[in-house]
C-alpha cells in the first residue's frame, strides 16, 4: 500500500468536494430555476466531462495552466508557483472534471421542490435567504450528500486528467489510482491488488449510500 499516494488522493478528494459544495449549490439552484431555453449551454457545459476523454480535458488544462497563457501567468504572479504538475493544479482539474457529479444531483433535488412550496414560504413572510435555509436546504440535503459522496469517490479514482496535468510526482501529484498503474508497470501485482481492493470497497460503499439516500422518501411532498 502506497500511503503517501492514498494521503494525496484523500486530500485531493476533500478539497474537490469542499470547493464543489458552494459551486454545486449555486449552479444547481440556478439551473433548476432557469427555463430550459436559457440554460441549455450551461447545462451542456456542466455535463461535458461525462463524455469528454480525460486526456482531452487534461490537454486543454495543461495549455490553460502554462505560463504563456494569461490564466497560468496570473496564477504564477499571484502565488509564485505554476499550476502544471502541482497539487493546486490537480485540485482545479478535479473541480472541473467533477462538475456534473456535484451539480446534477443538487439540481435534481432543487427541481423536485414544487414551485408552490417556495411561494408559500414567501407568502409566509420568509425572505429568499430564510426560504433557502428553512425550507429548501432541509428538502434537498439528500441530493447534496449524494453530490458530495459522488464527487469524493470519483476524485479518488481519477486517472487520465491527473496524469496529464499533475504527472506523477511522489508526495505532490501521485494519487492512488496512478500508484496502482505504476505498481503494475513494475510487476508489483500484490501492491496493486491491495490498493485496487481498497478503492473497490470504498466505491461500492459510496454507491450504496447514494442509492439509499435517493431512494428514501420520508418527506412526502404533496
Amino acid at each position, binding site marked *: 500500500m502506497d500511503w503517501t499516494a492514498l494521503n494525496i488522493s484523500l486530500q485531493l478528494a476533500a478539497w474537490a468536494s469542499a470547493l464543489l459544495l458552494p459551486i454545486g449549490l449555486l449552479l444547481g439552484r440556478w439551473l433548476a430555476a432557469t427555463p430550459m431555453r436559457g440554460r441549455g449551454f450551461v447545462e451542456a457545459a456542466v455535463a461535458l466531462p461525462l463524455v469528454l476523454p480525460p486526456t482531452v480535458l487534461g490537454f486543454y488544462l495543461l495549455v490553460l495552466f502554462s505560463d504563456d497563457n494569461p490564466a497560468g501567468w496570473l496564477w504564477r504572479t499571484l502565488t509564485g508557483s505554476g499550476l502544471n504538475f502541482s497539487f493546486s493544479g490537480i485540485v482545479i482539474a478535479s473541480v472541473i472534471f467533477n462538475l456534473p457529479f456535484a451539480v446534477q444531483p443538487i439540481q435534481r433535488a432543487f427541481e423536485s421542490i414544487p414551485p408552490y*412550496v417556495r*411561494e*408559500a414560504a414567501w*407568502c409566509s*413572510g420568509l*425572505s429568499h435567504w430564510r426560504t433557502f435555509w428553512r425550507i429548501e436546504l432541509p428538502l434537498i440535503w439528500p441530493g447534496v450528500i449524494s453530490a458530495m459522496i459522488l464527487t469524493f469517490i470519483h476524485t479518488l479514482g481519477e486517472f487520465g486528467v491527473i496524469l496529464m496535468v499533475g504527472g506523477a510526482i511522489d508526495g505532490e501529484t501521485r494519487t492512488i489510482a496512478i500508484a496502482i498503474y505504476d505498481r503494475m508497470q513494475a510487476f508489483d501485482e500484490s501492491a496493486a491488488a491491495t490498493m485496487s481492493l481498497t478503492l473497490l470497497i470504498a466505491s461500492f460503499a459510496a454507491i450504496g449510500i447514494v442509492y439509499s439516500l435517493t431512494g428514501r422518501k420520508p418527506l*412526502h411532498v404533496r
Partner: protein
Amino acid sequence: MSADWLFLQLHQNAPIPLSLQISVRAGELLALVGPSGSGKTTVLRSIAGLYRPQYGTIHCRDDVWLDTRAAIDHPPQQRRAGLVFQNYALFPHLTVRDNLTVAMDQGTAAAQRTEALRLLETVHLKGLEDRYPHELSGGQQQRVAVARALARQPRVLLLDEPFSAVDQMTRKRLQNELARLRRRIEVPIILVTHDLNEASALADRICVLHNGRALQTDHADSLFRRPRSPQVARLLGHNNVFNGRLLTVNGQPRLRWGDQQLELATSPPLPTGSDVDWFIPDSDILLHRRGRPSLGERENPVTGRVTECVPLGAQTEITMRCQGGAQPLRLQISTHAARRNDIRIGADIRVSLLAEGIHVMNPVDYRADQSLNFSA
C-alpha cells in the same frame, strides 16, 4: 382611505387577459367565481405579489402594494397577504406547529409556540401539533394551511379553491368551519371557487369573472335574480334568457315575446320599441295545476308542450316549447309535482311567468363588455 379595506384594479391584454376593479371591506367575504381559465387564481396571485400584472394598483388599508404607474411593486414578503393554496403547499419537513411558527415574525419563540397552539385550537387541530403534514388527512392539511395563513397576522386572507381537494363530506364540514371562523376574522377575505353553491353559501358578495373580466359583482340574491347580461346569466347556469321588444300598451310597460305580450312589474329605463335581452329565474316560473286553479295563474300565462323531461332526484327539469313561436322555456319542478300532474314528453302544460321576476337587461350595461371581448 375609504371604508374599503382592500382595493384593486388590474389591466392587461396578454398573456392572461385581466380587466377588473374590486373593493372589499374589512370582514367581508368576496367570492370570485368563473369557469376554469377565467383568471380567478391570477387575481389572487396578483394580490399576494406572486404575479405581476401589466397595469394595476392594489391598496390595502393605507398601504400601496402595487402601483405600476409609480413603479411600486412590493414583494410577497412585504404584503401581509395570507394565502391558502389550492393544494395547501405545507412545508413537508416541518411539524404542524413549525409550519405555523415559521410564518410568524413577532414575539419570542415561546410566545410563537403559544400563539401556534391557540391558532390550532381555532381550526380544531389541538393535539396534532407534533405531526408532519403527510401524517394528516386532506381536511386536516387544509386546516393547517388556513392556520398558517392566519399565523402571519394577514391584512387580507386569500383562499384559492380551498375545498376542491377534499371529498364531499369533508368539504361540507370545512365550509361550515369557514363560515364560523370568518366571523372572528377582521380582514377582507377573498375566496376563489368555481362552485356557485359554495359561493352563495359563504360569500357576502360574488364577483363573476370571465376571460379575466369582472362582469358583475353583487350580492348572491341580486346576482341570481338580476344578472347584468346574458353572459352572466349563462355563467351562473341559467338558461331562461330570451330576446324581446319593449312596448307600451295603455300606458303600461309590456314585453313582446313571440306572439305574447308579457306584463312587467316595473318600467325599464329604455325607450319603447327597444330590442332587449330578458331573463326569468326558475323560482318565478309557476306551473299551473291540472284542473285546479293555481295562485297567480292569470299573470303572464304561457301554454306549451313538453319536449324534454329529465328527473334529477327530487327535482325534474322540463323543457317546454311555447305556443306562438317563442323560444323554449326551461323550468325545474319537484319530481312529485311532475308525477301528480302527469307531466311527460308531449304533454300540454301551462305556466305563469311572474311579472316580478322578469328582469329586462339594459344593453348599455354590457355592450361595452362584448365589444372589448371581440377586440381582445
